[in-house]
């Protein structure tokens, strides 16, 4: 059960279980699993030390298709299994596959606690803004007013902004990518694999059957340049055709605003430089909320990536310290405790 010193050279195929995925034709999940299987040979962890845990929903069939250890658990509860496994076996790399209904509706409680604990688990949330497996009901990320089978007159409730929720819950790694942006997703997942601590990656995933075109507002070629903001560590937050638009922090209003280079004397120096390594998550939170504002682009990339001692690590520091302090105590001595008497 120890990590071998010399890892075998893996290929993508080593991570395919041989079971044909049962997702609908054209489902965004195919592209995601493809990226994960391409990534894993390079993460430097033995195949047997990687575990995929999922809840319930279309996305949660994922572990069956991976040739790793895997657990398909209960609706919404995957973070509890992943957390228990990670605390028990900190040497394992634990991935958690979930969807918007699984993670944010029935599993909202477990999700926020996994994030705030900085448990070293990697959550990939496939966000298709709909209940797919139950065939088309409103989800916690469906837009206000959305017509679904259970909201025939339009949804009357406001959606979660998932990265903002993850940031608010204290996640130390928060990112977003898009199913059809394979190369981008690959980079984000690599960074997620390298991060130690609570890791949250939202993936905009198109459901071609029940919510087709949910992300065309930012993936269509015609609008993509103005609608997507690609956040790159150390680079100014520029977007638009020829990267002429930027995001500026307005110190008067304490808000983010869209500016155009060359207009009103704006230069690249006025534009906010992306820094996901800020301890303080405030700017990351502001960026996460951009997508909700009309006239603003939707950010993709890494919002936050900071290192903090992880929950599993802190637990084992205590366990190891206790073992070192007390040594090997015999069971009888342990059971006797400090207050005994003898009966003859």
């Amino acid at each position, binding site marked *: 059960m120890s990590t071998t010193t010399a890892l075998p050279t893996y290929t993508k195929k080593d991570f395919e279980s041989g079971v044909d995925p049962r997702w609908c034709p054209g489902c965004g999940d195919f592209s995601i699993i493809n990226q994960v299987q391409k990534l894993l040979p390079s993460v430097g962890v033995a195949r047997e030390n990687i575990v995929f845990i999922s809840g319930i929903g279309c996305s949660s069939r994922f572990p069956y298709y991976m040739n790793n250890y895997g*657990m398909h658990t209960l609706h919404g509860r995957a973070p509890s299994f992943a957390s228990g496994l990670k605390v028990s076996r900190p040497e394992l790399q634990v991935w958690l596959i979930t969807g918007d209904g699984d993670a944010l509706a029935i599993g909202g409680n477990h999700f926020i606690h996994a994030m705030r604990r900085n448990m070293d688990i990697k959550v990939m949330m496939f966000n298709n803004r709909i209940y797919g497996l139950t065939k088309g009901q409103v989800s916690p990320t469906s837009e206000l007013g959305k017509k679904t089978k259970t909201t025939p007159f339009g949804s009357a409730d406001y959606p979660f902004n998932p990265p903002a929720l993850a940031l608010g819950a204290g996640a130390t790694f928060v990112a977003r990518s898009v199913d059809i942006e394979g190369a981008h997703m690959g980079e984000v997942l690599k960074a997620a694999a390298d991060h130690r601590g609570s890791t949250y990656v939202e993936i905009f995933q198109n459901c071609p059957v029940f919510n087709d075109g949910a992300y065309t507002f930012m993936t269509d070629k015609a609008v993509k340049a103005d609608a997507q903001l690609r956040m790159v560590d150390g680079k100014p937050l520029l977007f638009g055709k020829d990267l002429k638009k930027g995001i500026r922090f307005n110190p008067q209003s304490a808000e983010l605003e869209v500016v155009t280079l060359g207009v009103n004397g704006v230069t690249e120096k006025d534009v906010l430089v992306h820094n996901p390594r800020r301890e303080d998550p405030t700017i990351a939170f502001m960026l996460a909320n951009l997508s909700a504002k009309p006239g603003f682009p939707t950010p993709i990339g890494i919002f936050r990536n900071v290192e903090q001692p992880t929950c599993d690590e802190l637990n084992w520091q205590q366990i190891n310290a206790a073992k070192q302090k007390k040594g090997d105590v015999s069971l009888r001595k342990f059971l006797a405790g400090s207050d005994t008497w003898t009966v003859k």
Partner: protein
Amino acid sequence: MSTQTTRPVEQVDSVTIRFVGDSGDGMQLVGTELTKASAQAGNDLATFPDFPAEIRAPAGSLAGVSGYQVHFGGRAVHTPGDAPDVLVAMNPAALKTNLADLRPGGMLIVNSGAFTESNLEKAAYKSNPLDDAALKKSYRVVSVDMNKLTETALTGSGLSSKEVARCKNYFALGMMYWLYGRPVDMQVESIQKKFAKKPELAKANVTVFKAGHAFGETCELFTGQYMVPAAKLKPGLYRNVTGNGAAALGIAAVAKLSGKQCFLGSYPITPATEILQDASYFKDMGVVTYQAEDEIAGVGSAIGASFGGAIAWTTTSGPGLALKSEMIGLAVITELPLVIINVQRGGPSTGMPTKTEQADLLFALFGRHGEAPLPVIAADSPGDCFYTAIEAARTAVKYMTPVLMLTDGFIGFGSEPFRVPEDGELKPIEVTYQTKPNHDGNTYMPYKRDAKLVRPWAVPGTPGLEHRVGGLEKDSLSGMVSYDGMNHEKMVKTRAQKVANIVADVPDAEVTGNQTGDLLLVSWGGTKGSVDGATERLLAEGKKVGHVHLRWLNPLPKNLGAVLKGFKKVLVPEVNDGQLAFYLRAKFPGVDPLQFNRINGKALKISELSAKALEILG
């Protein structure tokens, strides 16, 4: 000063003492101190604390009364005692809520100083009950102004009046030490240890304790002292344990006996919380604890750890067990080992959190959706929680199944002397992980079973055995998802048969008393002590009775049907509305047990049960 020699020392078989007062009066403390002293004197004993669900109800109120009962004796002590022989009441509310339990003619020691107009009003007394002549007729009343005597003893101590007032429990304890001849020095040491960081309080409490002792000796209120001889206990090293404490020790013992990590994922809930608390200190013994965000996550984390190869536990009480139900079904279908300890309390819903009940039996046996049988075992006394935990874990890993262990608030909070097992007395627990392929073509089939129908346990980190498990029905060999109806039927039957096979490890039911006869008493769980006590009485009266106690509820011992049929009548005493009786009727058609049910949040009284049995016997 009159001398102690002028008063007689009377030997008594056993005595039950109850201390009652405000939640903040330190009744639990003096109760446990007297318990320790009695244990050291060689008495067998059993205790039970009785406290309100509210942490600190208003001082002097009826809701805020907290109590501690200890029963010690020179013979085997089965329960904390039916009715106190001595009631120590620190205020009017305590008197009002407990007086009815004191046995007729019993001794009532009251802190008369607390019987002020305002306290009487809080206890809804129209007049001072201590002035009631009827009280003195029914009981031996010893009225002592402990408030005043404590104040006097601490004159000049420099303590605030609040601090002084908090010492009076030691005055009561001092009197009891004199009354039952307990050594003063040991208690003085104990106080000094307890208050080591606050020497001024240590000094004050010692002073008050000694004052109480001297008061007992000098005042003429007591007619004599009592001596309870040492009991015949099995020789060995002893300590005191509560049921919850013993369960936690059991978890640590399992880690040591198996050489594997024990992982406890849990969530605080009365009356089970102490197991998680105690186990949190056992890190050096190989116990990993995890306080989850809720009951569901508690058991989920445990199942996750079990998938990883740990011996996994979760602890809870009724409402939590209900929440965990879906998760337990997952452990059943994935066939991962897990021990669920359910410390039963009064239900349904929030019910009576601090009061005992045995009403989760049918829920434990059947409370999951789908066909989801699992082994159920129940502890019968505080110390037995230790052995039951070990047996539950042994079964879980041997048969790759969740095991439900039942205890209850009565034995969870109750305490008794516990003989520390000798080195080597406890058998090691064998845990074998699958490390090699087990099927043709060098493949691993996670649901390929052995002769006992047990599947292998391959854990992450084992190269070549990567596999997936989950809540969907799985192929009977590969474990891959299967929606084939015939495969499902086969899997349902196989899982049930595997659990049924555990009967091979279930000892035959043993009958105490007559092996056949007029009446068989059948008990399970925490009522064992009461039924033992009642059986002893009935046998002493020459009745043809027997007693069988069920430790395993599923599977039931294989000889149970024959045992039941050996008696003309069967009586099932339970602290519920007849759940074991219902179960036995279903399991053994033709046997129609009579019932004795109390659902009053308390243990069964030996006297009531004996009376019921005598009535049946005619």
